[in-house]
């Protein structure tokens, strides 16, 4: 394998990291909550398209659309039950509340699906461009991620509801005084964050096998990417995802793969220390 193939593979999966991280930083940016149930929701997205494909017999990409709506509803439900009461409490409360949701989902998921690996039996062959040869599903996942980013921008900057979300992000009290129903907007924003997580999970499941615990690794990557791109900055998250993907693709060419997480997390802590607003600047 030559370095170019690694690079392209890394870059393509970087797009998906991008939207997973976008979901995390959207919630963080809007309501200053770090969603520790992000990983299990990514995993639920994976199982969502698996069951859409096996039980309903639909195409996995139709499955992703179904999963995205389920993710939106689930997120709003989580917000209403677990977050709303503690939204103004100290950080520890929201961190632990979302972690409680994490435990509940993992516990139920382990009972229902065990921790063995699942695989969506789906392939669209490979695409070759010059010396690079990569699975078509990865290319589609990258394109879908760009599409999702575009849709999110359209929603945030071209619709009234999106304007409300931005207003609540900037100043919740002032938005409330302007007649914006802030509780509902917060629920919607949380739902959008989990929707992005579920989509990312669904897209990943089209080319990687997964278990109920798989989401954890992507949650950690989302932290890295989110901090890199700047909290609450969707485009930053996408670019951060591409940087991380490239990083993961290129490093194995120089040193054993097991060093990748070491460098990743050292990079993460260093960015936090040196530029906590992210390389591209936080939205706020």
């Amino acid at each position, binding site marked *: 394998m030559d370095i170019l193939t690694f690079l392209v593979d890394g870059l393509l999966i970087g797009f998906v990291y991008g939207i997973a991280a976008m979901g995390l930083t959207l919630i963080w940016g809007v309501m*200053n909550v770090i969603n520790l149930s992000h990983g299990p929701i990514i995993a639920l997205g994976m199982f969502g398209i698996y069951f859409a494909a096996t039980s309903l017999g639909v195409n996995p990409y139709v499955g992703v659309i179904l999963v995205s709506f389920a993710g939106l509803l689930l997120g709003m439900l989580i917000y209403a039950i*677990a977050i709303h009461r503690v939204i103004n409490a100290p950080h520890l*409360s929201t961190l632990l509340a979302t972690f409680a949701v994490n435990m509940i989902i993992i*516990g139920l998921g382990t009972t229902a699906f065990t921790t063995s690996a699942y695989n969506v039996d789906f392939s669209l062959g490979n695409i070759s461009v010059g010396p690079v040869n990569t699975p078509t599903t990865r290319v589609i996942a990258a394109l879908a991620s760009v599409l999702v980013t575009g849709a999110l921008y359209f929603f945030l900057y071209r619709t009234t509801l999106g304007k409300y979300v931005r207003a609540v992000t900037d100043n919740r009290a002032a938005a409330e005084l302007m007649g914006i129903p802030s509780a509902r907007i917060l629920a919607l924003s949380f739902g959008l964050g989990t929707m992005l997580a579920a989509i990312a999970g669904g897209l990943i499941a089209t080319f990687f096998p997964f278990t109920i615990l798989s989401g954890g690794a992507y949650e950690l990557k989302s932290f890295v990417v989110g*901090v890199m791109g700047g909290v609450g900055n969707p485009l930053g998250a996408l670019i951060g995802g591409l940087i991380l993907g490239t990083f993961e693709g290129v490093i194995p060419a120089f040193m054993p793969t097991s060093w990748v*997480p070491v460098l990743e997390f050292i990079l993460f*802590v260093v960015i*936090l220390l040196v530029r906590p607003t992210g390389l591209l600047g936080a939205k706020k």
Partner: protein
Amino acid sequence: MSLKNLKNPGLWLTLVVVFILGVIPIINNKASAREETLTVLLSVILVSSLNILLGYTGYISFGHIVFYGMGGYVGLFLISVYGWSLWTAMAAGGLASGLLAFLLGSAILRLRGSYFALATIGINEAMRAFISNFEPFGGPTGISLNFQVYNQYGGAAQALWTIYYVVLALALGNILLSYLVKTSKFGLGLQAIREDEEAAEVMGVVTPSSKTWAYVLSAVLPGMVGVLFFFKNGNIEPGPAFRLHLSIELLVMVMLGGYGTIAGPVLGAFGYQRLRGLLLTSDLFKNIQLTVAGVLLLVIILFIPSGAVGWIRHRFPVTRRYLP
């Protein structure tokens, strides 16, 4: 830190309760009861030490278990490679964790709120990934002790009892330490930081060094018990040594008992471990024990955020003297 503080009845009550619970397995001379109580006592140590940083200073760490794992690794390395005795290795493990906390703390304690919490997650993961690649510590397979090593402590069975006595002593010592810290001028400074860091600074608390020393204090005992636990286990691997999930369980125990109090972490550790044991052995809840624990945590966060001890103190002010 005056001696007058030591007259608090609540402190002695907590110490006596822990002592009695710790002594029961010794009197009964039952190994199974000893193992159960050992798990609880280890949690008491980890939780009360975490409480110094989390409860007093208000900094949320998701990486407390790093010090436990670090101590364990340094200790087992010294025992297996250089043939150190368990006790000097235990001291070295505590020292290594303290040093690590000093270095990390000087860097990351500048971060506030969620950013600090995230950095500690990063450190936990970086540490595990690094140790998995670090050949002197055995890389991904870790360090295993030769069974012969237990002979100098009177055989494996006797060694387990000896370790138990030491853990009990450390648990009592840790409760005393966390009380002394809380009532000292240093501890008051920490609590001022928790309430308002800028105001504390204006009032003359040297916040960077106070925070760093709180971090170091919270790291030393986990490092020491890490050596004991993994010595008892006979081996150490990167996964079990730096398990993020364990760090979070510690946070759950602090919240369950009531953060910032002395009795809270003790009660939280006892309560959580007993509950976990019950759920794991019950047929009905065995499979969904994680879900039940999650629901419990959520209920506590949403309805009794100050934990059991905080709630009792608030509800029955007369108990405040007895529940420090």
